[in-house]
């Protein structure tokens, strides 16, 4: 059975695209046939993070409007055969995604993919609703600050009421909470919400905590999903998330201030 997973958040810039790229690469490297779809019509940055922007000929909207076949638009990742990318279009026409069109594309992709990862745009408008509508599962990306948590709460409510599963009275979308850009030092100073705070407010199962990390920006600039940077904490944290999605039980890491860091700071090393 194909698992359709939407990566969503409400608030913009919290790490949805970073997460979509990392998770889809991780699943593909673990041997699963995976496709990642950019629902952020008009902005298009998944293809940049995946380093395939120059290979985009046809896109998601072309396929929906019948101007191209699906396999003409799918881009095979150069690093991992199991991974394909369906890029968003540059056209500003967000209305181009129709529910029937999206349903048809997802159905066709389901035939030969185990995982379909949908990178949602920010907000709670048409594009975000379209990205979540057909999902079986949702990764709700939250930064540990009040406005982001509030928006995630809103999105969880919509997942529970405005999805295909909700409308057909099927079992609800399974939510996974992902806290991103977590900085234990700032939590310690009281500038950020703690993991416990976020979990209490959102009352949703936690699938991972991604630390704030310079590796993320470096990787996305180089077009490398951060999960391939196996030395970085963010990369390792994403690898844990992928393992948990595959049913493995792994403890949370990088959630506490490292003693080493403290010593280094104290002695100015």
């Amino acid at each position, binding site marked *: 059975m194909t698992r359709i997973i939407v990566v969503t958040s409400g608030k913009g810039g919290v790490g949805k695209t970073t997460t979509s790229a990392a998770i889809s690469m991780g699943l593909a490297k673990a041997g699963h046939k995976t496709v990642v779809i950019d629902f952020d019509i008009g902005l298009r940055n998944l293809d940049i993070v995946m380093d395939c922007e120059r290979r985009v000929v046809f896109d998601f909207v072309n396929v929906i409007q019948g101007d191209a076949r699906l396999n003409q638009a799918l881009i095979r990742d150069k690093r991992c055969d199991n991974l394909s990318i369906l890029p968003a279009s540059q056209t500003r026409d967000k209305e181009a995604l129709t529910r029937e069109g999206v349903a048809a594309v997802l159905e066709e992709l389901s035939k030969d993919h185990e995982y379909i990862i949908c990178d949602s745009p920010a907000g709670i408008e048409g594009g975000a609703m379209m990205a979540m509508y057909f999902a079986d599962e949702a990764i709700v990306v939250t930064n540990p600050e009040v406005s982001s948590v509030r928006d995630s709460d809103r999105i969880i409510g919509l997942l529970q009421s405005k999805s295909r599963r909700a409308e057909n009275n099927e079992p609800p979308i399974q939510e996974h909470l992902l806290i991103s850009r977590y900085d234990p030092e700032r939590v310690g100073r009281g500038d950020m919400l703690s993991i416990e705070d976020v979990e209490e*407010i959102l*009352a949703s199962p936690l699938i991972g905590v991604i630390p704030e990390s310079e590796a993320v920006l470096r990787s996305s600039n180089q077009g490398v999903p951060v999960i391939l940077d196996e030395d970085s904490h963010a990369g390792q944290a994403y690898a844990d998330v992928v393992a948990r999605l595959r049913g493995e039980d792994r403890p949370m890491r990088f959630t506490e201030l490292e003693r080493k860091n403290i010593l280094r700071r104290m002695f100015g090393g």
Partner: protein
Amino acid sequence: MRPDAKAVAPVSLNLKGSMTAHALLQVPAEADLQSACQALTTLLAEDGPALQHTPCILAFPERDHLPDWLGDWVEQLRAADLVPFAVQCGTEEDQQLTHSLGLADMPVPEPSFRRPRPAHQARMAAQVPPMVVRQQVRSGQQIYAQGGDLVIMASVSAGAEVMADGHIHIHGDLRGRALAGVKGHQEARIYCRRLDGELVAIAGVYMMQEQFPEQRDQVEVSLENDQLAITGSTAR
């Protein structure tokens, strides 16, 4: 560079938002300066030392405009060692008046939640079974139990609103808004595990977060003599 500029070491200022404790000092609509001052004397006689140097926001609920004696009122308060720093007001005129006194203007809490109360008390429709919600009520969601009670087995998020013609029982935390007895039933009550809400109301009488008491665990909200009574404990 000016010659004297190098004598001063440069510093940078930190400007941070903060939520500090303050009092909200409300003057009832029927009061004039004289009766307000009288009430102030009574208040000081009771709580004088505790109130000294307390920062206060001044409020004049249910008036169309700030009273023209606002300036005198502020002077009286300062003379009594209170520290007024802001005034709740809506119109541009009132804001100007506030600014001219060197005070900040603050928005008046939304009046839309003051629902008109029906003239005669509605009876509780006991026949309707309670509406039971098992999931957390999320930001942006609104739930209304028409004709009866509402039971929520989880928390109510900030930005969510729950309403009932009867009572509201929240087994989790209330972080959003809860309005019981919305058709005017004055015996309606609100119960919650913890009151962190934005607003509670019974039969159209409401209270905002800043007026909530310190005791916010295992809370019961009821309407007594046209005022909301909130009882709870501090143990968590």
